[in-house]
């Protein structure tokens, strides 16, 4: 359908279908095109982590995307057409992820696909999106987009990538927490990204990582690793993720006890959807975390913050309005919202009418650079780099105070800037 079918060995599927008298199918297709022209809903595919390790994110990403879609439809849709989000569960896995891309494009007839968070799902799915020549807008934070590892059809316009996030943190960490850093990280790609990017970033600030402690992903207890933390450590940088996080924090607290220990700095990825007042997390009191979007509404929050929270159904503490114990994946889920509004902006600017305009749509996206603060971008203004297909925004550092995350610093976009590693606009479609 969307793919260019090579005619090898045998007659094409189209010829066979025609030969078998598939006139009914053709009539249906014709009718659907007519319906589209008359304002039928535009289907946008969402690759959802409804099950698997990303399920807690997926639940909130769906709520966020639904809220954004409702707001867009209330605003008149995209180019006058209402939108309909089509969700397919990828099981947070790359194999099913690629199949889901296929299903959203070829079976559901979606115009674009967006919403993917986990990096391995993005990496496994992007080749299929490229084959289908369908815009694939991911929300994964991964550096894989800006690194040039993917293709022209894959873009990340709704969230800053991890390299930029880490780089933006380093000056504040060095100036306020210390310059002798020990890093504890999971021993796979996510942790290695932090290891490599932060080590370089803190060195640029005159600091030093004095120990790298890599923890295998199968570990359920961390007591054997904690004595490896050098005594002269000023800052303990931790990015553990998964179900072992609570054990890690608890054992860290027991290890240091009431005595003086290093200052703690972590990425909220460890504790997304987890209440900071959860028993066992008391040791985190006073420690600092990176957040892309502040879970607890800052006192000086922008004018669109309240509207965003109300639309998604989140209170000022970052929990569900209907259940305060249901804590949102607040730091990340804005990316689903902002990506959908980016799609709207680009589709309307390009005059998108259907799949034949997909290439024009990507070219239009590549031409967008300034993404100002507004209801479309409640996390904050961003700059989109059309060459690297990557957005860059501000980041936040929050401190745990009284069991709540309180923002103490906000970076600038320039803090996270780095040289381009790729120019996707020079690649063919």
């Amino acid at each position: 359908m969307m793919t260019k079918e090579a005619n090898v060995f045998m007659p094409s599927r189209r010829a066979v279908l025609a030969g078998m008298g598939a006139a009914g199918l053709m009539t249906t297709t014709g009718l659907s095109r007519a319906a589209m022209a008359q304002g039928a809903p535009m289907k946008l595919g969402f690759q959802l982590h409804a099950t698997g390790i990303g399920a807690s994110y997926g639940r909130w990403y769906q709520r966020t995307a639904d809220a954004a879609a409702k707001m867009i439809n209330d605003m008149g849709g995209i180019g006058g057409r209402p939108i309909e989000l089509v969700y397919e569960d990828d099981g947070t896995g790359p194999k099913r992820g690629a199949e889901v891309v296929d299903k959203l494009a070829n079976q559901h007839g979606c115009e674009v696909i967006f919403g993917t968070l986990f990096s391995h799902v993005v990496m496994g799915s992007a080749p299929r999106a490229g084959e289908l020549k369908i815009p694939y807008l991911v929300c994964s934070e991964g550096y894989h987009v800006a690194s040039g590892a993917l293709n022209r059809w894959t873009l990340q316009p709704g969230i800053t990538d991890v390299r930029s996030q880490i780089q933006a943190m380093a000056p504040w960490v060095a100036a306020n927490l210390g310059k002798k850093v020990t890093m504890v990280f999971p021993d796979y790609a996510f942790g290695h990204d932090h290891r490599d990017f932060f080590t370089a970033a803190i060195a640029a600030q005159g600091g030093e990582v004095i120990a790298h402690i890599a923890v295998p992903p199968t570990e359920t207890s961390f007591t054997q690793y904690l004595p490896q933390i050098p005594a002269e450590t000023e800052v303990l940088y931790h990015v553990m993720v998964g179900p072992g996080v609570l054990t890690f924090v608890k054992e860290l607290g027991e290890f240091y006890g009431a005595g003086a220990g290093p200052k703690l700095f972590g990425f909220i990825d460890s504790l997304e959807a987890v209440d900071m007042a959860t028993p066992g997390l008391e040791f985190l009191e006073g420690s600092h975390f990176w957040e892309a979007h502040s879970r607890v509404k800052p006192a000086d929050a922008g004018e669109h913050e309240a509207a965003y929270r109300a639309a998604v159904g989140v209170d000022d503490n970052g929990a569900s309005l209907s259940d305060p114990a249901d804590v949102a994946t607040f730091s990340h889920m804005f990316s689903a919202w902002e990506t959908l509004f980016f799609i709207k902006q680009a589709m309307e600017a390009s005059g998108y009418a259907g799949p034949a305009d997909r290439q024009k749509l990507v070219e239009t996206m590549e031409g967008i650079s300034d993404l100002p603060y507004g209801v479309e971008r409640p996390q904050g203004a961003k700059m989109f780099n059309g060459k690297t297909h990557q957005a860059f925004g501000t980041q936040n550092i929050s401190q745990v105070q009284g069991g709540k995350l309180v923002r103490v610093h906000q970076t600038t976009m320039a803090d996270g800037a780095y040289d381009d590693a790729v120019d996707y606009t020079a690649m063919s479609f």
Partner: protein
Amino acid sequence: MKIWILHIAVLLALVLAQLVLPPYHANNLSRILVLAVFAMGYNISFGYAGLLSLGHALLFAAGMYGAGMLVHHAGMPALPALIAGGLAGGAMAGLVGLLALRTAGVSFMIVTLMFAQVGFLSILYFNGVTGGDEGIALTGPQRQILGLDMTQDTPRFWVALILFAIALLVKLALVQSRFGRLMLAMRENEERSRMLGLNPFGIKLKILVISGVFSGVAGAAYALLFGYLGGSFASVQYSILPMLYVLLGGAGTVLGPLLGAGLMFYLVDFTSGLTSAYLMVVGAALVVLVLFAPKGILGTLRERWLPWLP
């Protein structure tokens, strides 16, 4: 003769299916064919020889990385890389077999599982080369096989079908050969075969290596045809999946892996659209299968109506 007619008819039906199916299902068919090759490899060791392995993900991954890394890092063309992937699967099976085949039964399951975990964690650990859990996306120029572009659905299907057809016919010939009867002897009564002067260790090692070649070819084909290699394909899930395909389709049947892979694929595809608890539905279906057709679909057919089915 009717055995060969049946299997050639199945291949012709697959050709026809690709021509008439809508694009989504036609492309699914390519995936199913590659997964069926993997399941056929598993079936050779488990279904015919009774070697219940929990480590075949390692053999699939050996093929996937054996081919993918040669293409990605060394610039090797896809066809020799595909062959190298098959050899990597066979070599890995030989290495594992040399140690694991000193055990049997539950111990064999555990030892193969442990080897597979070592492989999985090694892929994560050496992520600078392997891409770790994120994996590596292959580009279009890296995925050309004999001038056929694997980024296009139709040539991809033909390559998948050719690989499947070769695997199917080789397996059919294998199970009908003298060696095929030795495979059954390992499953049915290893001690008696030893008493007859055979060398069960050597026979089982050969079986495992053949199984590894099938699995390795499938892993290599998956990387080259679908453009991605990643650590998750070495996880325990990919040791369980071929077992489920084989159990569902019929252990010890030539066509069972294809049927099982296809049914399981669409069971997940269909039920995941209905509920996020789709794995419970899949589990319930397997429980029903074990209760009412413990020999799988084709195994039950063979037992009741088609005793000639290989």
